[in-house]
């Protein structure tokens, strides 16, 4: 090992990685160079298909049977890795180089106890005795804040939660005190509150162990929080590189600037700010332009950019791959004409009539027991209380955002409204019709007015049928237009979605994720519904595509005066997009009100915790540090009294340490006419909470 603190751990120089495919090869990574020093976290950001993960795999030589390092050097602690044999690399991996991937469930062996898996790392690489290894593992688990480590080691992966699994994986990676830790989207699959805790842990461990970290993510907020230096990748190249403060304060490359413009800042809303998607899409490897990779999507591109490939060069404190970097001032930027900038003011007319009204809506799922009694139907009936006493209303032309961690019942709420699930109790009125029953009990007229947009672009469309056929189906089914005009109507919808008539005969597999999602929206629009329920419509998309889809949704909302229910786990997106917001926890609405009221004090303690967990894409912003302890309790047996009391960080503000929270259901506090908070804390106390983010970024 090297003693010098600032000595480089990993040096990647002019790296190019190619995959052999039928009839040739494609260069997934063309030119990546960077250095990671001890104790440094190097963030690599970029959209999907830019070669971020390929770089990580190249370091470990995990490129599969058809991939290889074509050019360049990868030096780890001074040794060249590209020349090493498989067995030499195997000794390094897991010992001096460790990795953490996105899905902890796939990184852990489901049939081995966690302790045994962890011990393997030590016994294989270091030849440590079993008993000693056991001790060290327990210590490491304690280090990563795992409650009850000795017990956890006896469990199997499925017996602990996703956040805990990722902690085990991180702990396992750190057991041998590796010089380099590679993390590929380690928090993408986790909830914000869990993500925040894991990111804290990573930062802490970096300081303590002085490990070099290579952190790959698509999320600018996460990079701002975790990294010290950042490399931005585009189409297989490193396009900009510098310290995190420098990159966020003064992005030089037009691509980096574009990325910053398409994510909503936390607290930004649709009437004050506009998202600017980057036009076009990342060129696939094998079809990349000759000049600057970004030229076809760049507002500044001139002739030189089309012809001459720019090199990565130093400019002030950063490295940037752009011919025009000196001349571009990103503050002077104005959108070019073909970028949609929807007029931001929402029409206020006729907005008073609520279109949907729910009163103490309940949805329970029966749980099947496995005892003999249960099989015979004699056992006690148990339920997952997925939605409990939801009361809210939505006015015409408005958007209700629903936020909460996974398992909080937001999807069930939407499914109940649309009729895919039966409600268990309560009252829902839509346009004056009762819609408490499921779809089979509803009138065709009601069905047609309620449509849904789904999360996963890959499964939202039937792979068998063309785009045109799928959009036409609801039109024919509900006879929205006469049969001979169906095609024209479909083309019209496609154009509204900015797709064009030539998409009519395409099959889903020929579309990109964003295009599929737009077709999904077009299909939902086809029956001309009054209310569209959007279940995480943009969370599976890249940021620039996400911005474009959000803009389209805003546009159709204005054009057709559509009402939207918008579910998302990204709080900045929900804030940007919604007029009203409901915060859910364990099936219960904890706080509901106008968007601006939710994001400013008075907060519900849970909302406050959520907001302080959101990764903010601004390294200079000061954010309150509130982390929830423990796991979300089971919805089969939710805590009595206030459902949040087991994790509430504000309980002790009440007399007696908040005993009342354990026994009594909290009252609705109404600090404002429309704003309601479900909490025992009196409004006066809630109002004293500080704002979560004290310094707004440069937005």
């Amino acid at each position, binding site marked *: 090992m090297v003693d010098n603190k600032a000595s480089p751990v990993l040096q990647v120089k002019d790296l190019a990685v190619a995959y052999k495919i039928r009839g040739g090869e494609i260069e997934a990574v063309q030119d990546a160079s960077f250095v990671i020093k001890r104790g440094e976290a190097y963030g690599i950001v970029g959209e999907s298909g830019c070669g971020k993960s390929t770089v990580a795999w190249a370091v470990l030589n995990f490129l599969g049977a058809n991939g290889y390092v074509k050019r360049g050097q990868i030096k780890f602690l001074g040794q060249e890795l590209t020349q090493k044999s498989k067995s030499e690399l195997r000794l390094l991996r897991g010992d001096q180089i460790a990795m953490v991937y996105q899905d902890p469930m796939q990184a852990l062996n489901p049939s081995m106890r966690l302790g045994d898996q962890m011990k393997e790392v030590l016994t294989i690489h270091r030849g440590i005795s079993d008993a000693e290894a056991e001790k060290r593992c327990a210590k490491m688990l304690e280090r990563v804040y795992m409650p009850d480590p000795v017990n956890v080691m006896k469990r199997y992966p499925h017996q602990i939660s996703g956040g805990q699994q990722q902690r085990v994986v991180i702990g396992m990676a750190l057991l041998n005190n590796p010089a380099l830790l590679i993390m590929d989207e380690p928090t993408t699959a986790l909830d914000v509150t869990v993500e925040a805790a894991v990111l804290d842990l990573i930062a802490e461990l970096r300081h303590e162990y002085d490990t070099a970290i290579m952190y790959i993510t698509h999320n600018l907020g996460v990079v701002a929080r975790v990294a010290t230096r950042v490399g931005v990748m585009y189409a297989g190249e490193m396009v900009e590189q510098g310290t995190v403060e420098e990159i966020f304060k003064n992005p030089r490359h037009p691509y980096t600037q574009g990325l910053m413009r398409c994510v909503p800042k936390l607290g930004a809303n649709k009437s004050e700010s506009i998202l600017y998607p980057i036009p076009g899409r990342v060129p696939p*490897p094998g079809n990349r332009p000759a000049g600057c990779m970004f030229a076809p999507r760049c507002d500044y591109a001139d002739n030189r950019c089309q012809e001459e490939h720019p090199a990565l060069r130093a400019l002030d404190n950063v490295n940037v791959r752009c011919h025009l970097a000196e001349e571009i001032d990103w503050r002077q930027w104005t959108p070019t004409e073909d970028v949609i900038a929807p007029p931001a003011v929402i029409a206020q007319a006729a907005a008073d009539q609520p279109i949907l009204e729910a009163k103490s809506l309940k949805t329970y799922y029966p749980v099947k027991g496995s005892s003999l009694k249960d099989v015979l139907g004699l056992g006690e009936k148990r339920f997952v209380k997925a939605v409990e006493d939801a009361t809210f209303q939505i006015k015409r032309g408005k958007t209700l955002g629903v936020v909460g961690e996974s398992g909080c019942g937001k999807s069930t709420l939407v499914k109940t409204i649309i*009729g*895919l699930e039966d409600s268990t109790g309560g009252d829902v009125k839509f346009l004056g019709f009762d819609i408490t029953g499921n779809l089979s009990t509803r009138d065709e007229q009601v069905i047609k007015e309620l449509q849904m947009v*789904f*999360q996963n672009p890959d*499964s939202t469309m039937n792979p068998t049928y063309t785009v045109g056929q799928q959009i036409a*189906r609801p039109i024919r089914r*509900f006879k929205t237009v006469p049969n001979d005009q169906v095609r024209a109507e479909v083309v019209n919808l496609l154009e509204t979605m900015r797709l064009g008539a030539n998409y009519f005969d395409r099959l889903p597999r020929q579309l990109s994720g964003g295009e599929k999602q737009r077709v*999904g929206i077009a299909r939902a629009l086809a029956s001309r519904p009054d209310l569209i329920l959007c279940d995480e419509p943009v969370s599976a998309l890249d940021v620039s595509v996400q911005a474009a889809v959000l803009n389209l949704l805003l546009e159709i909302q204005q054009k057709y005066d559509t009402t939207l229910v918008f579910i998302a786990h990204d709080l900045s997106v929900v804030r940007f997009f919604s007029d009203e917001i409901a915060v859910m926890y364990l099936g219960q609405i904890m706080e509901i009100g106008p968007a601006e009221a939710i994001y400013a004090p008075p907060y519900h303690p849970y909302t406050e915790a959520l907001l302080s967990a959101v990764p903010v894409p601004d390294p200079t912003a000061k954010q309150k540090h509130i982390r929830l302890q423990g796991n979300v309790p089971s919805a089969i047996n939710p805590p009595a009294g206030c459902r949040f009391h087991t994790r509430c960080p504000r309980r002790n503000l009440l007399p007696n340490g908040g005993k009342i929270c354990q026994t009594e259901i909290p009252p609705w506090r109404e600090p404002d006419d429309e704003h309601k908070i479900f909490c025992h804390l009196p409004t006066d106390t809630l109002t004293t909470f500080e704002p979560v983010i004290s310094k707004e970024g440069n937005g």
Partner: protein
Amino acid sequence: MEAMQSGLKLAAPPSRLRRMWKNISIIFDSRVGTIGMIMVLFWIVTALVSLFWTPYPPNATDFIQNTPPNIQNLLGTDQLGRDILSRLMQGTQVILLKTRLPWGKAILPGGVAIWGVLGSVTLGAVLGLNAGYRGGWTDQIIMQFLDALIAFPVIVLYLVVIAALGQGDLVVIVAITITGAPGVARLVRSLTLDIKTRDYIRAAETRAETIWYIMFKEILPNARGPLLVDSMLRVGYAIFAIGTLGFLGIGLPPPDPDWGNMVNEARRSIFANPLAVVWPSLAIASLVIGLNLFADGLREELSRYQK
């Protein structure tokens, strides 16, 4: 790679014929599949030729009995002095090309093996879709019933069907259908369980489509890849079944030759003329193996292209 493929495909919408050819031509990427396809094509061509020409009338007893292969009878003659080559060629017809109906001389295009497999795929798909999509009690009842059916040895099922309905081409089709349907139903059910979780099924449900529309228009077309491969294998099994029934003497009725029956008849003089048993056995084996290889190649290539 995926991005590049889609890039190429976006170039121009190819004509329907080109698209079909492109779909078919993926089989050439697999060597095993290509060999299988050549074997299957060989028998299809043989069957077509036999409609118009065989070296000699297949049922004519014009030759010396049990001769080994020679210039006159390329594969020799059987125990009644019939030309084995002509009979083998003719034997393909009833498997692949025609079904004799019990009414006069009426003939249905499409062989017994083909109709049998179509029957089991149709019945199996309907049962599997209902079991998989509806779930609950429907699923329990359908699957328990099919499991009970699977528990019977196949040959016993054949005998039961034939004992109940008598002999004939249609009866063999029914027998193949009944014995094949449980397997198809299991496959379709498992595919349905996967496909029904997709969002486009939710979209159809929120349009309140009928259950039959969802099952047959939304789910079934997306199960066609695995189903096609399975059908190929099943044609192989069906040919085997026809051979078995023919060998037992309860298969396709005379006078037309049938490979299983040919083996059975030649078995009696196996020491005098062993080749007379070998030829029809080889024919059955090569067609079944050809179909298996073809199906394997198809599965391999389809799974690669579905990504």
